[in-house]
C-alpha cells in the first residue's frame, strides 16, 4: 500500500470497515510511514471528540406535539381539528348557539394566541366543564399534545400536575389530546378524545380536595352527596349534553359529551386505569 492508497483508506480504517487483508496492508504502511500514521491518528481523534462532545438529542416533547398538531391540521377529510369541530358543532344548532352565546357574552374569554385557554367565570365545576367542552368544540381550547397513544398523553400531563391524571385507552378512539390551564392558581387538566362515529368526549380534571373544599372551584351540594354515595354523578343539560362526574384516585373527573349516557359510562368505567 502506498501513501495515496493509505490516504483513501483512512476513513474506513477509522470506522473499522477494512477487510482483514487491507487492514494488514494498512497497518504495515502506518508503521513504516509516520506522516501517514499521524494523519490516521488525527482522524481517529477527530471522530472520537465529535461523538463524545456532540450528543444525539431526543426530540423535545413540545416539538413532537407541535408536529402532530400540524399534521392534524392538514388532514384532508376535515382539514383541521378546529375546522372539524366547527363542522360538527354546526350540525347541532343547539351546541352552536350555546357556544356562540358563551363566546359572545364573554363567559368564555380568550386569552389570545398561543394555546389561549378559555377562562371560566363560574366556579361550578359542572358549568365549567360544559363551557370547556364547547370551547373544545369551537377550537378555542386546543390540546398542546395529541397522540394515538393514551399513555403518551397521560405521561405528558402527569409531569405538570400534583394529582393523578386519568387518560384512558378507549375503544374506537382516533386520538386523544391534553392541555393544562390554571384558574386562580388551581391547576386544571383537559383531555379531549375523538371517538370514531361518536364525536368528541371531553374530560375536565381537578384535584379532589380543590373540588370538595377549595374556594376557586366548587361542586353543587347534591352532586357532592351523590358522588360520595355512589362514586358517580350524572346530569343532562337541556340541549342533551351529558355530564358524568366520577372520582379517579385523588382526582375529580367530569366528562362531557353528546354520546349516549350508557355508552359514556361504559367506556369510562371499564377503561380508566386504576
Amino acid at each position, binding site marked *: 500500500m502506498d501513501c495515496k492508497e493509505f490516504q483513501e483508506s483512512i476513513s474506513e480504517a477509522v*470506522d473499522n470497515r477494512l477487510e482483514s487483508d487491507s487492514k494488514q496492508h494498512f497497518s504495515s504502511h502506518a508503521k513504516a510511514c509516520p506522516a501517514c500514521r499521524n494523519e490516521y491518528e488525527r482522524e481517529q481523534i477527530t471522530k472520537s471528540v465529535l461523538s463524545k462532545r456532540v450528543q444525539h438529542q431526543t426530540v423535545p416533547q413540545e416539538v413532537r406535539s407541535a408536529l402532530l398538531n400540524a399534521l392534524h391540521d392538514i*388532514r384532508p377529510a376535515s382539514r383541521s381539528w378546529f375546522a372539524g369541530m366547527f363542522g360538527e358543532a354546526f350540525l347541532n344548532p343547539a351546541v352552536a348557539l350555546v357556544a356562540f352565546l358563551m363566546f359572545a357574552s364573554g363567559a368564555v374569554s380568550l386569552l389570545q394566541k398561543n394555546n389561549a385557554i378559555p377562562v371560566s367565570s363560574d366556579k361550578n365545576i359542572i358549568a365549567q366543564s360544559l363551557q370547556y367542552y364547547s370551547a373544545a368544540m369551537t377550537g378555542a381550547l386546543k390540546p398542546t399534545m395529541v397522540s394515538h397513544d393514551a399513555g403518551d398523553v397521560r405521561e405528558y400531563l402527569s409531569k405538570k400536575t400534583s394529582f393523578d391524571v386519568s387518560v384512558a385507552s378507549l375503544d374506537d378512539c382516533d386520538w386523544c389530546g391534553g392541555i393544562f390551564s390554571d384558574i386562580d392558581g388551581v391547576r386544571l387538566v383537559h383531555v379531549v378524545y375523538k371517538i370514531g362515529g361518536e364525536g368528541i368526549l371531553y374530560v375536565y380534571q381537578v384535584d379532589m380536595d380543590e373540588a370538595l373544599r377549595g374556594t376557586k372551584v366548587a361542586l353543587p351540594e347534591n352532586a357532592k352527596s351523590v358522588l360520595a354515595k355512589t362514586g358517580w354523578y350524572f346530569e343532562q343539560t337541556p340541549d342533551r349534553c351529558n355530564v358524568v362526574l366520577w372520582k379517579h384516585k385523588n382526582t375529580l373527573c367530569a366528562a362531557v359529551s353528546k354520546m349516549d349516557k350508557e355508552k359514556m359510562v361504559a367506556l369510562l368505567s371499564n377503561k380508566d386505569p386504576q
Partner: protein
Amino acid sequence: MFAFSLAITNPMTGLHKEFEKEAIPHTDILYNYALRMTGNADDAHDLLQETFLKAYRFWDKYEKGTNVRAWLFRIMKNTYINVYRKAVKEPDTVDYNDIQNFYNIIREDSADANDLQEKLFGHLLDDDVTKALESLPEEFRTVVILCDIEGLTYEEIAEFVECPVGTVRSRLHRGRKLLYAKLYEYAKNRGFVGKD
C-alpha cells in the same frame, strides 16, 4: 369564519394513519440532522415541521417498500438548501505544517491516544466542537453528522445523499480533516493542555 359545509368524516383517514405510522418514527434522526444543520433549536423545529408537511403532501410520490428514512431525509436536505442555507465559506487556507509540527511535539510525550486527545482538545468547550462542525461546507458536514453522530453505515449514508459509497468515504476523510484543522484553531485560542 364558520365552515358550514365541512364534511363530517373520520378525520384519521387510512392515508393519514399510514403516513404517521411510517414517518413519525424517524422524527428523532431528522430533528438531530436539522439541529446540526441550522445550528439552533427554533430553526430545527421549523425545518422538521416543514419537512413532514411536505412529505405528507407528497406521500403519494413515495415508493412503498423503499427506505422511508432516506426519502424523508432528502426532503429535509432539499428544504434546508432552499430555505436555510447560509453562505458557508470554504474554510480559509489552513497551515497544515503548523498543525503537523505541533501534533508531533505533543505526540512525543503522550502515553496513549486518550492522553493525546486530552492534551490536544481537552480545553475545548462543547460549543467549540458544535461551532467547528457547523463551519464545514454542507456536503462534508452532512456525511460527518450522519456517520459520527447518528452512527449510520456508509451504505445508508450513500442512499441518503444519493452518491456512491466511495464518495461517502472520501467526503468523510476530507470533512474530518477540515474539522481537525478547525478544532486545532479553537484549541490554540483556548490554550492547549499540553503547552508548557
